[in-house]
């Protein structure tokens, strides 16, 4: 019996400022539309996996059920930093692979508009007396005194480290990556920002953490995404239209960061991504050269560069030349982030790991409108949550 799992329905809400919608509203919008897209109802769903990272009190899954359908099924509320959405999806996929049910629903949602720095956003005032505290025996706050805890600063160093290792990077190079993604966003009506930006505009915008200026950082915004997954055996009983639009999950991989020298000094976002990609290509039986499009985790422009290499889209050390060749533009050989990426589409954290799958599915179904990658058959979606967790999904168009 085939253990293949398919995406039957999927939906991404408009990303951006959604002041009139709360977290549950957004999750419900995504879930109800994903169910409609799949042609099923909550009565069919056998497992729900849901993620919401910054919303405070847990239980987004149950809160969602109370608005869209309390059927008594198991709920997994998952949290895995920026990989939360991918983790929710994989949880639903695992339940189907385990034979527990035929249909699963995965939802990721976040309200982030106007939040500002997500880490390193505050540092306690110094105390009246120096008393060692915590695992480093620190007598005062260390953020800003011993490096930085801010994400723009951490990921800036990730990109700079690649430059130190292989050469060829510059402020301008990283800004050009952002220029690409902002250009791509003009074709995505669901993106939080859809404005084309020139290289000059990007480089002269507010500096956040050199070399990342503001438009080179992922955009905090509100949004949700949801997916309905189905077993292979159940799919075969559904309508030809459902089978035609179903997207095969050829690989669903989750990794964490294995120990490497320096990984507790600066997070190593490379090794776990490379490991996830290696496992995903093997599971899917395809190689990076087969990919028609890639949505990768450009939480910062400096991060996108290293993931070209980590996902093996280029030769080791060849990310700069690969980008400079134009390969990752929408009309290139390996289009990357045609959605506009996190820098312009936005990054409502727990939604991101399903929203990137939605983008890939949209192309594989031939429904991506003006930004459609012609005849797209295979795509890869990648997320990384610092801490770290990496999700890689490889998706293939239905042969039906």
């Amino acid at each position, binding site marked *: 019996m085939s253990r293949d799992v398919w995406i039957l329905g999927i939906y991404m809400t408009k990303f951006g400022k959604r002041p009139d919608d709360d977290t549950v509203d957004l999750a419900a919008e995504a879930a109800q539309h994903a169910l409609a897209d799949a042609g099923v109802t909550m009565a069919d769903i056998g497992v729900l996996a849901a993620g919401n990272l910054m919303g405070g009190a847990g239980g987004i899954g149950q809160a969602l059920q109370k608005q869209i359908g309390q059927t008594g099924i198991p709920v997994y509320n998952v949290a895995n930093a920026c990989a939360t959405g991918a983790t929710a999806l994989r949880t639903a996929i695992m339940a189907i692979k385990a034979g527990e049910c035929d249909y699963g629903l995965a939802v990721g949602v976040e309200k982030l508009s106007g939040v500002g720095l997500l880490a390193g956003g505050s540092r306690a005032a110094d105390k009246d007396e120096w008393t060692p505290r915590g695992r480093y*025996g620190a007598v005062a706050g260390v953020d*800003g*005194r*011993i490096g930085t805890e801010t994400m723009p600063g951490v990921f800036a160093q990730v990109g700079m*480290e690649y430059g130190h290792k292989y050469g060829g990077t510059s402020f301008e190079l990283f800004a050009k990556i952002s220029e690409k993604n902002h250009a791509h966003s003009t074709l995505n009506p669901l993106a939080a920002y859809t404005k084309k930006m020139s290289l000059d505009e990007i480089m002269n915008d507010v500096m956040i953490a050199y070399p990342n200026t503001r438009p080179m950082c992922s955009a905090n915004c509100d949004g949700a995404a949801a997916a309905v997954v189905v077993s292979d055996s159940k799919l075969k009983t559904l309508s030809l239209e459902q089978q035609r639009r179903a997207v095969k999950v050829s690989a669903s991989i989750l990794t964490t960061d294995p120990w490497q020298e320096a990984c*507790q000094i600066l997070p190593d976002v490379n090794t776990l991504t490379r490991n996830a990609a290696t496992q995903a290509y093997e599971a899917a039986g395809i190689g990076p050269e087969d990919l028609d499009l890639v949505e990768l985790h450009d939480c910062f422009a400096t991060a996108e560069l290293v993931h070209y290499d980590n996902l093996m889209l280029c030769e080791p050390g060849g990310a700069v030349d690969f980008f400079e060749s134009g390969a990752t533009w929408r009309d290139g050989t390996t289009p990357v982030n045609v959605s506009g990426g996190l820098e312009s589409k936005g990054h409502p954290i727990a939604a991101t790991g399903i929203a990137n799958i939605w983008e890939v599915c949209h192309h594989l179904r031939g429904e991506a409108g003006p930004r459609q990658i012609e005849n797209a058959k295979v795509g890869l979606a990648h997320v990384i949550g610092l801490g770290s967790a990496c999700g890689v999904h490889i998706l293939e168009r239905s042969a039906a």
Partner: protein
Amino acid sequence: MTAPVPLVDYLVLDDGPHLRAHECVNCGARYFDRRNGCASCFGTEFRDARVATDGEVRAFTIVAYAAPGITTPFVAAVVDCDGTSVRGNLINVKPDPEHVELGMKVRLATYVVGTDTTGAEAIGFGFEPAN
């Protein structure tokens, strides 16, 4: 006079200021925080290891936007100290891309973070250009 205290317990102020790592006796992995075990080999025995004070900048960023109370801009960096990676700020250098570069040679330096109500100074560390 009250003795100065280090900002973090892995900064050793006497015997020439230097950093002290917890080194796994089994595999040699080095850490700066209090340990429950080794993340690399799962060993539970550690010894103190003196970290080289000279190093090379392997990565940096110039942070312009940080939490309230943190003076910006400042340079956050990863410094390779003879094979041991260290997180720290680059100090005694102008925080701009013209004065900071990948691969630059640096050395450990200390500075006064502040003085508490008992009159004790807290001493922090950073890395300054070696040349």
